[in-house]
């Protein structure tokens, strides 16, 4: 049944158990409005990545997941995947074609974009991701990690998704590449769901944060107040980010 609400993402009572029996997600409720940027934080193993994989039906548990009002079902997964883009943690997993061009073209081609339009899409995706056009014919293993991250982003942006899920986008990036990526993220118009350990990134980009631990959501609210709550942070294996600590100490 379609829901005519205005939410970009509507997750209700989502539960997921791995084939070997471990419970990964328990009773997840999450509503995200269009254009909103939220962060999902929590210790390792909290289920952040697993949650992201439910956004486009790669994994499916019990409960309901709605994207742009449409409920995820076997029959409409292709449609959903037009609208939801996922950026995975390791660029090597996303860049599997022999050249960058083919990697970026892969998504649009699968969606049925006519061949004549593909070069334009690739060009736009590359510039949106802050990359030079000359990178098109290169092979991904010749690129630096920062470049690979951005190419991965380009592969997802080429599909023009309304919702973007990202798993640790700034991990292993040096300061300059990290800054560059944050600039790009700030310019994106899609609804953003960032799963990350980088709490400074969260402070900069996301006004709302969700705290996950052991498969459940423990807190969902305004970023600054949540992240400065030392008790909450420590109870779930996190720390108050440095910039907030100075403020707390100073104040």
């Amino acid at each position, binding site marked *: 049944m379609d829901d005519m609400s205005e939410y970009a993402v509507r997750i209700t009572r989502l539960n997921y158990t791995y084939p070997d029996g471990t419970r990964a997600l328990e009773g997840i409720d999450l509503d995200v409005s269009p254009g909103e940027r939220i962060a999902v934080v929590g210790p390792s193993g909290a289920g952040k990545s697993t949650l992201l994989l439910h956004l486009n039906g790669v994994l499916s548990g019990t409960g309901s997941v709605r994207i742009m009002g449409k409920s995820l079902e076997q029959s409409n997964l292709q449609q959903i*995947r*037009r609208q939801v883009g996922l950026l995975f943690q390791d660029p090597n997993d996303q860049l599997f074609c022999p050249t960058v061009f083919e990697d970026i073209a892969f998504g649009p081609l*699968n969606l049925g974009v006519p061949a004549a339009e593909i070069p334009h899409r690739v060009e736009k995706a590359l510039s949106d991701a802050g990359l030079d056009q000359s990178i098109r014919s290169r092979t991904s293993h010749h690129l630096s990690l920062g470049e690979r991250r951005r190419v991965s982003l380009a592969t997802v942006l080429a599909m023009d998704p309304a919702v973007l899920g990202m798993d640790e986008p700034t991990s292993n990036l040096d300061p300059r590449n990290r800054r560059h990526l944050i600039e790009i993220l700030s310019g994106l118009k899609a609804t953003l769901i960032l799963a990350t350990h980088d709490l400074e990134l969260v402070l900069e980009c996301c006004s709302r944060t969700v705290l996950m631990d052991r498969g459940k959501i423990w807190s969902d609210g305004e970023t600054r107040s949540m992240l400065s709550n030392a008790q909450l942070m420590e109870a779930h294996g996190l720390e108050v980010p440095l910039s907030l600590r100075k403020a707390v100490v100073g104040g």
Partner: protein
Amino acid sequence: MRHNFIDRYALLDSPLHILEPRTKLLAFTAMIVAVLCIPVRSGSLFVAYFFVTAILMGISQIPLNYMVGRTLVILPFIVLASLAVPWKGYLGLGILFVRAILCLMLLILLTNTTRFVELLRGLRRLGCPQILVLNLGFLYRYLFVLTEESMRMKQARDCRRVGRAPLREEFRILSSMLGTLLIRSFERAERMHYAMLSRGYSGEFPVVSPKRFSWHDLVFLSGVTIFIALTVLWH
């Protein structure tokens, strides 16, 4: 482990390099088959093919010592074949050697004047089953990732090694290294599958490749065809 055995000379700029991959695949395969069909007695044909191959080697700009170095690959087989001299005579061995070298040189010319990705595209458009082309593409793409991982594992192991362990222990270590690499490969394949699904993969791999046949290709193909036809008629 060096990675430069792939595409090492593929980015040069010679008359052979700019040819379309299909042209080269067809032409060089035809030449190799032609060489293998040269009747044993006709030395003159061998000479003709030798000259043509040498000319092609020259214009390819691939270093000669590299090409000669590659002949090491057939050395063990030549050694085995030399044991047949009592039955076949030195002439027989010599002919075998010439045939093998000619075919090897032609193969080197084909593979070293073409970027591997171009070669794959050419194969696909010549009708090679898609799954084979896909596998080759993935192999090419992930070979480097895997060799880096295995190098790192080897280094990590070497750091912890003191002297030589007994054979049994060496095997256990090698098995666990290979096993770990294997597991990581499976896990990577799974994540790759998720990434593919997320970008709309539904079992088929779409292909877009621009048609780039030019007059160069026409000239080269006709040249090769005429040459082979002449040699066939000569015999």
